[in-house]
């Protein structure tokens, strides 16, 4: 079996057999352990045990309460600026090939980026306290 695996050419279906075995074993182990603990463990359900564990302090109120809208604003701005950075990946790969012209283009991209950042700073989107 093993010799078949080692001698077979790359990229055939048989190469994936160890992964399948690993997967079956992992899932089987998890399922086995969970069912065993469920069957063997003692069951004592009280209201204290069902409450959320908050480091020993009694929990207060609902977790889904409204947050400050500022938080939302910062999160959205983070997403925008975060995603724009992916354009650096293709540039990093072709850094040498693109040369001076590519560098200037990226510089312009960053400049537009900064314009947006200066704008949101001046608008006060990042001022936490008012």
């Amino acid at each position, binding site marked *: 079996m093993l010799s078949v695996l080692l001698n077979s050419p790359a990229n055939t279906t048989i190469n994936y057999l160890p992964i399948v075995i690993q997967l079956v074993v992992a899932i089987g182990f998890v399922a086995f352990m969970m069912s065993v603990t469920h069957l063997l463990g003692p069951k004592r359900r009280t209201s204290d045990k069902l409450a959320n564990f908050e480091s020993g302090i009694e929990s207060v109120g609902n977790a889904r309460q409204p947050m400050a809208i500022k938080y939302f604003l910062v999160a959205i701005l983070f997403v925008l600026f975060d995603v724009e950075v992916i354009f650096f990946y293709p540039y990093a790969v072709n850094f040498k090939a693109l040369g001076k012209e590519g560098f200037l283009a990226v510089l312009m991209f960053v400049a*537009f980026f900064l314009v947006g950042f200066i704008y949101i700073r001046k608008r006060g989107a990042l001022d936490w306290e008012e």
Partner: protein
Amino acid sequence: MILIITASIIGVVLLFASFLLKHTSSLLHLVTVLFAALFGVAIWEALQPTAILTQSFYLDAIRVDRFTNQFNVLITGCLFLYILLMKKHIAAVGKYKAEYFALIAFIMVGIFMLSSFNSLLVMFLGIEIVSIPQYILAGSDKENLKSTEASLKYFLMGAFSTGFLLMGITLLYGATGNFMVSEFNFLQATSINPIALGGVLLLIVAFGFKVSAAPMHLWTPDVYDGTPTPFTAFMATIVKVAAFVGFMRLFQTSFTAISSSWSLVLAVVIALTLFVGNITAVFQQSVKRMLAYSSIAQAGFMLFAIISLNAIGRQGMLVYTVAYSVASICFFAILIKMKDYTYDGFNGLAKKQPFIAALATIYMLSLAGIPLTGGFMAKYYMLKAVLFEGSYMWLAIFALLMAAVSVYYYFKVIIAMYFKEGEAAMIDSFTKEEKLYLTIGALALLVVGIFPSLLTGTI
């Protein structure tokens, strides 16, 4: 190309203008100067000796040709007229005055990309740059629930159609292996790839959403009605025409060879658009809503340029750009001063303001397509284009019938102004400059109606 850069810079400058200029009047002066500069750059670029050649930029992703230059001049001209007439009203919409103008400048960047793309990537970016600021403009009147509703509806519909657009682009890429519209190699293929055909159909659906062709028009009346009127005037005219130019550019350069497989679908879409737009417009009580449906009806005529796939269609598109945009913008400029947006609100306007009523009559006649106005010539070119192509005689006859229906609801406004007694209450009076700009608009319509070759002669 310089035009795209200029428009971006104008957008950035206006973004920061709100921090530097405290007074609305100085802001409005700056806006006028900047948009006049944009118009000037468009004319300058079209007058270059190289303007009649096809130039390519950025690895051939952008191609500027003669049609692009002509269209850019006309659309920036319409924009300048729009800014002159509406700047006061735009500044009155809400708190962030300079930002509204900045968004309009950014939309212009997208429009210039739509008139010059050669890569589907640039087309996609152009459409998105045009769409996303529009969602904001639609919801700019934050106190008004109708505006917010329009914004949400427009956003959901726009994002939905973006999904179709992208799927169409992807399927085309899957069929051909590149994004360059001028090089689609399935054009030479003898048999049609089903993946490519699916892509073309999805693109028709996506563009149908953007230009509000039936049955993808359902968002249009609510959105145009809820949006603050100055921005409705922008969305229904300049942006819509630009979307048509993008649509036409893509289909005329890439899909001519396989037109037999999609043109019947488009013909059905056109017939539906003409029918729904005109018939529903008849039953409207509000003039603003009537204009929304009439923009759907006019979209049906503009779609002729896409189905006919010839040079006459391209010329017709240019005439339509001016005739439709100028008439609608000027009429919106009158409508925005009225207290009551229903037909009854116009009762007796001719007695109170004879000059304004006469101008409004010219705009309505042009939209209805009465001879000697630009609207007639626009419709004439479109019908000529589709008859030249030969296979859609029934569509042309149906369009004529529907144009006759449209006369009814446009004339209702004229009848209300001239033959009914009433107050015609206005919020605000017209200044001297505004009257001048409105007159220039009416003259432009008449000139285009009598000498359309001024616009089309050089193509």
